[in-house]
């Protein structure tokens, strides 16, 4: 094939010039500190997200004004406003495919007899892959997210209450446990058995009749998967407390990506070989944890999560939107997540360096296809990570640009008019 230097020169070029450049670039970016933006700490009154919150504040008094109903104009145009405001509302709930439980909200009823029957039958002992779906209530999700977030960079854990329904596991409620160090010892739950028993007992007095159905914990910043310790804990749980579920939630990635980062898992019993490689969505995992992930990732499987909410929940959430749109507009993910992003870039640069050294090593020998595949995998994984990071960065920037367009361009027109 004329014209293309298909030999080692091009490979050499990519591997020895482009890749190092990319690695160096990533190192440069990772050397930034989050404080370099002065408006991050500009107005201490405007709090954390700099210009984002100033916008929020400007919108604050207006939102009280805008939400006020004692102006006659509002009442007059209320009918008109209903139509206009229902459009964004519908957009907002566009993909609402949850079963908005019907008016009797049956899912909240706890049928003691039916549950006991199901527990006695124990269909899961015959099929390790029996439970396939998890339904999480709106309240449970919110509680888990808030608890995980309140832990900051420390892992937190808690217990979930719920029931089973065929192949579904339903999580109705969760509560936090007063334990620490969930990532350093198996069965950290042992320390909290007393608390658990007391809590479940007192919950029964106020209509919370469900039993423990699983446990959840957080992996702040490093994704939703089960570490070696988690797998051992879950294996123990599935031996003695069946049916049991493990949920992992990542509050940092939730904020960074703008969507809830959560995963539900059940382990296979020891010695069981899963039928096929049902690998889930690819996740970026930091280098220091990737070994732990790789060793154990075949020992458990992920369940599909869906959410449900009651009719009252739905109504309240709709009304909440009337006040919440302000914070959606004024949130600034770049600032809130600056630390995390910098960490991700550092990690990415290390991965790229690894990929580079591997390619160089291989490149000096006469390469076989098998070797090529491995080094490509490293580079392609690193690329996937960088793509995800870039997308998140761009989303944050989009919000900033939108805010800039909306609120900062006012002066221009005034000055323009003054000059003409």
């Amino acid at each position, binding site marked *: 094939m004329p014209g293309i230097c298909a030999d080692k020169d091009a490979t050499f070029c990519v591997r020895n010039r482009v890749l190092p450049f990319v690695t160096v*670039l990533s190192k440069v970016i990772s050397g930034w500190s989050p404080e370099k933006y002065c408006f991050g700490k500009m107005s201490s009154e405007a709090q954390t997200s700099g210009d984002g919150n100033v916008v929020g504040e400007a919108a604050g008094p207006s939102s009280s004004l805008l939400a006020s109903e004692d102006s006659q104009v509002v009442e007059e145009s209320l009918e008109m406003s209903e139509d206009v405001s229902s459009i964004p509302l519908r957009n907002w709930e566009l993909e609402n495919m949850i079963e908005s439980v019907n008016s009797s909200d049956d899912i909240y009823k706890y049928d003691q007899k039916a549950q006991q029957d199901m527990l006695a039958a124990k269909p899961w002992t015959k099929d390790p892959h029996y439970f396939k779906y998890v339904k999480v209530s709106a309240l449970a999700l919110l509680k888990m997210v808030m608890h995980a977030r309140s832990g900051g960079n420390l892992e937190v854990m808690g217990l979930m209450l719920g029931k089973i329904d065929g192949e579904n596991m339903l999580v109705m409620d969760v509560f936090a446990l007063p334990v620490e160090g969930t990532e350093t010892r198996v069965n950290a739950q042992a320390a909290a058995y007393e608390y658990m028993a007391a809590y479940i007992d007192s919950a029964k007095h106020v209509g919370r009749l469900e039993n423990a159905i699983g446990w959840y914990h957080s992996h702040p910043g490093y994704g939703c998967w089960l570490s070696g310790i988690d797998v051992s804990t879950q294996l123990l749980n599935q031996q003695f407390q069946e049916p049991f579920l493990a949920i992992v939630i990542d509050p940092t990635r939730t904020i960074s990506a703008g969507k809830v980062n959560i995963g539900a898992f059940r382990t296979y019993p020891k010695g069981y070989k899963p039928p096929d490689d049902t690998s889930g969505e690819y996740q970026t995992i930091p280098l220091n944890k990737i070994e732990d992930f790789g060793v154990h990732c075949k020992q458990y499987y992920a369940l599909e999560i869906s959410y449900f909410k009651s009719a009252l929940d739905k109504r309240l959430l709709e009304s909440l939107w009337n006040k919440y749109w302000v914070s959606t507009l004024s949130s600034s993910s770049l600032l809130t997540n600056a630390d995390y992003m910098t960490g991700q870039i550092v990690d990415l640069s290390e991965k790229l360096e690894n990929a580079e050294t591997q390619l160089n090593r291989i490149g000096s020998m006469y390469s076989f296809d098998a070797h090529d595949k491995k080094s490509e995998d490293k580079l392609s994984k690193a690329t996937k990570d960088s793509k995800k990071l870039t997308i998140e960065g761009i989303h944050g920037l989009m919000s900033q640009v939108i805010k800039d367009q909306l609120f900062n361009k006012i002066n221009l027109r005034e000055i323009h008019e003054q000059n003409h």
Partner: protein
Amino acid sequence: METESRPGTSKEPVAVQPTAADRSVMAGAGAIGSVTVKLHPLVIMNISDHWTRLRAQEGKPKPVFGALIGKQTGRIMEIMNSFELQYTEENGVITINTTYYYTKEEQFKQVFKDLDFLGWYGSGGPPTESDVQIHQQICTFTESPIFLKLNPQAPSTDLPLSVYESVIDVADGTAVTRLVALSYTLATEEAERIGVDHVARVSNVSSATESLASEHLNSQHSSIVMLHHRIKLLLEYINAVKEDKLPRDHEILRLIHALCHRLPVLGSHQLKEDLHDQYNDVMLMTYLGVMSKGSQTMNQFISKFNVLYDRQSAARRLRGLFM
């Protein structure tokens, strides 16, 4: 602080107008609350869940009561979480089970070390005499608790929540506890907002068909539409006042004026510089992403090319190695 000093505005919903029979419960119209309340949506969801499951189990709606916990710094109370309370009802008199409360208090102190008991919540319509009674019982747990009332069956589309605190009024020579309405705002923690958003519009099927960018832009778009709509409302109001169709309300006009005057603050030079800096930083990150993507594509292409067209030379070299 303008939001807080106006209890007369309806941050509270329509349902709060006291009827003639309950007029003794609310303090006079001139009373202004002494604290401001920030409410987390989690509390609202908690109360809703409590009410829903009790209704599902008992078959008909029952009043629910519970405790509110959170932090208080000075005059600002932030209500972050809540739990249910047990009560017994005899002849319409509701008594809160104090032992239950103490066990629960011990429990939550273990997990949420820095949260305190701030008040209580109940469900139902406008506040009644029995609410005041319960409030007095709660006063034994903490001084000056606040009272949150959620109406799960309110017809209006606004948030059917009201917050009250108690004052001791002197009426007919005896000290009577009366309720004063407080204004509240919604606390906005980032993770909570995302959780609420997710729950409100989540779908069973993963949105693999929709690009991430369009999802993100959709939510931004919805908020902008709301903003636009609200500003249009304000504009109409001003026009109407100008044409003398509506009476002037100086307070509202002053607020609008203040709002317009805040905008130029955001155009400061320092801010522009920082915005550009941030823009450049994100662009650099994008550059990194694009470059690594490009180098990976190149690498793959070259390897594949090698497989196709280099076989002869590789084979020759191999034979050279092994022979």
